[in-house]
């Protein structure tokens, strides 16, 4: 049987750095093929070359046995390659139908496009209203647009970059059904994911990359998540160990009462009467589908946005609702936002300058108002050493670090201050298994030393792995926190879908 797409000794260099070197793989017709690897292993680079967004430095592609040169995305689509990007390539100000029309080659009337969207979304169980503007849709719905517009091109190969990282478990299940239906119709799927359970369940073959090289191919259903992860990382992964349970006797270090904040962004979510209290040694996990108020909650907890009343946020008994982020830091709180590049760190500044940005109020990295570079460099070296941050050179610019390494830096920078209260959002988003384990263990260790931690995350595995108690945020409302041992994944999933659901087009399992 001829492979649908054969990759022959493909390499891609950015300057001296090889993102891919000498990679060869075959994607057979109708198979669901997993592409695995750590962050920076070169997965995205490889698929971007398959889709014609990047040009290979060396090597060639064969399509149905014929050598081809990928001249661009338009040519890839002509061949029948569709791609669903991790960061959606949608136009927010346009409607669903207009977004789809833009990816269709021919000049179709808008009404025909809308009709086609309806047909495909019915056939594959992907409900979509073609007349809605994209900015009013949830992330799950946006992903459906991406999938529908690929399907409309009648693809032979569908490339999906981490499709489930933004979905509820129920939404992910439905996506798997769609993918299996497609595969049974003869469409090949190249599936990139960090969630190894998913890969084992869904995929027939897996190709594993490490540092830009192909290290293994296997049948994922015959592997364990641990063995897959170890192939990706190349070393044994230490498992995360949870400390003892928190007793009700520990003092409350962080709490909110009726925290109500209207969204600053017109497309954002209002926070409605958020109540939580976190004791010393406790990790409160806040689950939820992206876009349900997580950003707003983080900003309100950190003091980037002030609360409705002074008592709305309390750190160690001090009411700080009307105080900014530095006052809260001085009370031993620390904050790690979700977006590492641009929020947690400034890309164009060096690591030591970035360290100064979040610690200037609390640590002696300055002398008489001037920056003490020596002390700062020492601080950064500590972070780099403790959290194994790998950079191309000493004190490199933040933007030059890979996502996982920058995340380790952002986490380490706050951890090293030994905070009493830590608010962290998506601590391991897009971070590989090895680095994720290091970060999660650091959170657990910090809690065991008496800190109170609030962790906002969309990764349910992570929530269950480290949390002592779990609450769910849905449309700006926080559910009551329950002990992690008393709540199941299914229950959390239902709470994530919310009582009212998103856009009203959801069929809930309840």
């Amino acid at each position: 049987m001829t492979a649908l797409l054969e990759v022959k000794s493909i390499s891609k260099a950015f300057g001296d750095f090889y993102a891919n070197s000498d990679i060869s793989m075959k994607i057979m017709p109708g198979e669901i093929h997993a592409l695995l690897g750590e962050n920076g292993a070169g997965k995205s680079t490889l698929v971007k070359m398959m889709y014609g967004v990047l040009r290979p430095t060396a090597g060639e592609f064969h399509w149905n046995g014929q050598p081809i040169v990928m001249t661009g995305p338009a040519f890839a689509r002509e061949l029948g390659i569709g791609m669903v990007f991790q960061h959606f390539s949608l136009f927010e100000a346009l409607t669903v139908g207009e977004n789809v029309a833009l990816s269709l080659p021919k000049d179709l009337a808008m009404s025909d496009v809308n009709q086609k969207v309806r047909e495909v979304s019915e056939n594959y169980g992907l409900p979509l209203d073609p007349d809605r503007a994209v900015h009013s849709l949830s992330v799950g719905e946006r992903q459906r647009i991406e999938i529908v517009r690929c399907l409309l091109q009648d693809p032979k190969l569908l490339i999906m970059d981490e499709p489930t990282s933004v979905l509820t478990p129920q939404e992910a299940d439905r996506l798997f059904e769609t993918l299996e239906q497609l595969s049974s119709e003869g469409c090949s799927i190249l599936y990139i994911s960090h969630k190894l359970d998913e890969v084992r369940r869904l995929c027939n073959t897996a190709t594993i990359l490490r540092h830009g090289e192909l290290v293994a191919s296997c049948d994922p259903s015959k592997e364990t998540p641990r063995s897959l992860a170890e192939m990706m990382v190349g070393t044994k992964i230490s498992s995360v160990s949870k400390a003892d349970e928190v007793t009700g006797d520990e003092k409350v270090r962080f709490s909110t009462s009726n925290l109500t904040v209207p969204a600053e962004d017109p497309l954002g979510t209002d926070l409605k009467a958020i109540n939580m209290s976190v004791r010393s040694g406790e990790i409160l996990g806040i689950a939820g589908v992206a876009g349900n108020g997580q950003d707003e909650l983080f900003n309100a907890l950190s003091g980037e946005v002030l609360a409705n009343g002074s008592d709305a946020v309390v750190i160690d008994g001090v009411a700080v609702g009307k105080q900014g982020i530095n006052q809260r830091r001085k009370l031993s709180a620390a904050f790690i936002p979700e977006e590492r590049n641009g929020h947690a760190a400034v890309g164009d500044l060096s690591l030591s300058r970035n360290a100064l940005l979040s610690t200037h109020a609390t640590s002696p990295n300055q002398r008489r108002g001037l920056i003490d570079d020596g002390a700062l460099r020492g601080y950064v070296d500590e972070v780099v050493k403790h959290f194994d941050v790998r950079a191309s050179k000493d004190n490199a610019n933040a933007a030059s670090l890979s996502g996982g390494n920058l995340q380790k830096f952002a986490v380490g920078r706050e951890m090293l201050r030994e905070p009493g209260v830590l608010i962290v959002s998506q601590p391991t988003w897009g971070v590989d298994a090895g680095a994720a384990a290091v970060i999660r263990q650091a959170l657990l260790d910090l809690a065991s030393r008496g800190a109170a931690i609030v962790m906002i995350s969309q990764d349910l595995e992570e929530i269950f792995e480290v949390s002592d108690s779990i609450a769910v945020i849905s449309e700006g409302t926080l559910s009551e926190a329950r002990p992690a041992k008393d709540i199941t994944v299914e229950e959390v999933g239902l709470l994530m879908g919310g009582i009212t659901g998103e856009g009203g087009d959801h069929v809930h399992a309840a």
Partner: protein
Amino acid sequence: MSLDMVDLLTNAMLGIIVAATPYMLAATGELVVERSGVLNLGVEGMMIVGAVTSYIVAFSTGSLVLGVLVGILAGAFLSLCFAFWTQTLLTNQVATGLAVTLAGIGIAGLAGRNFVGTTISPIPQLYIPYLSDIPLIGKVLFGLDPIAYFSFILIFLVIWFLWKTRAGLILRAVGDSHDSAHALGYPVVKIRYMAILFGGACAGLAGTYLTLVHTAFWAPGMTAQRGWTALALVVFASWLPWRVVLGAYLFGTVGYMQLFSQGMGVPIPSQFLSSLPYLMTIVVLVLISRDQFRAKANTPASLGKVFKPDL
């Protein structure tokens, strides 16, 4: 109504149209540019270069048509420079736009120095037979100069283009997210070049209107910040063409009232009236930024951002 009143009203309406047309032309062009995600602050410069070149050509050759064409081309040429710098050399759009304005004012002053104090006969009105004889509205609707008519045709063409054609959809998409448009395989830079050229041509025509219709002479600095007002108008219109018409006529009315009240000896300081359009711009900008939802739904999300594809 007495005959005097009718005359007064007719004149007022004609005056308002003449004052509003340059705003409308320049703002329509800039709206298309900004819808493609480019902020060209050079409108004032392109306008004044259009004004001076069209006047020089019309004065020297005696051909108004040639003057108009050269004015349009001059605006487009300056915008081509802007496009080359910002789209090919990836310079900062704000700084480059300011440079275009400053350079335009300087070039125009230099080129027009021998023409100060001369006059030409302006572009005549097109009187449509019989219809233009209707009292009150006849002259206003059927007795305008060709460029004023064209400004309305242009608005309708732009609305049709942006919302009814695939090319318009692509242009809006490029302005919303150039990265997504690039990922889908659309030539972002080429589309922006064309939008910028269109904007330059419109600004050039707006300048032409000032010298060949409005005043019939050339004076240095005669655009009098109209290009800046046109830029503010695009924001005022929240990037919707029909609101550009509304805004242009609002500003045009204020501009006319200022001249009129001075002429009639109304005891309001002329400085106050001269400052009215700018005060209104500030008020409108404040109002718009208070209503973020509406502004955001229409604001081109990649406005002013440098696009550099990675290959």
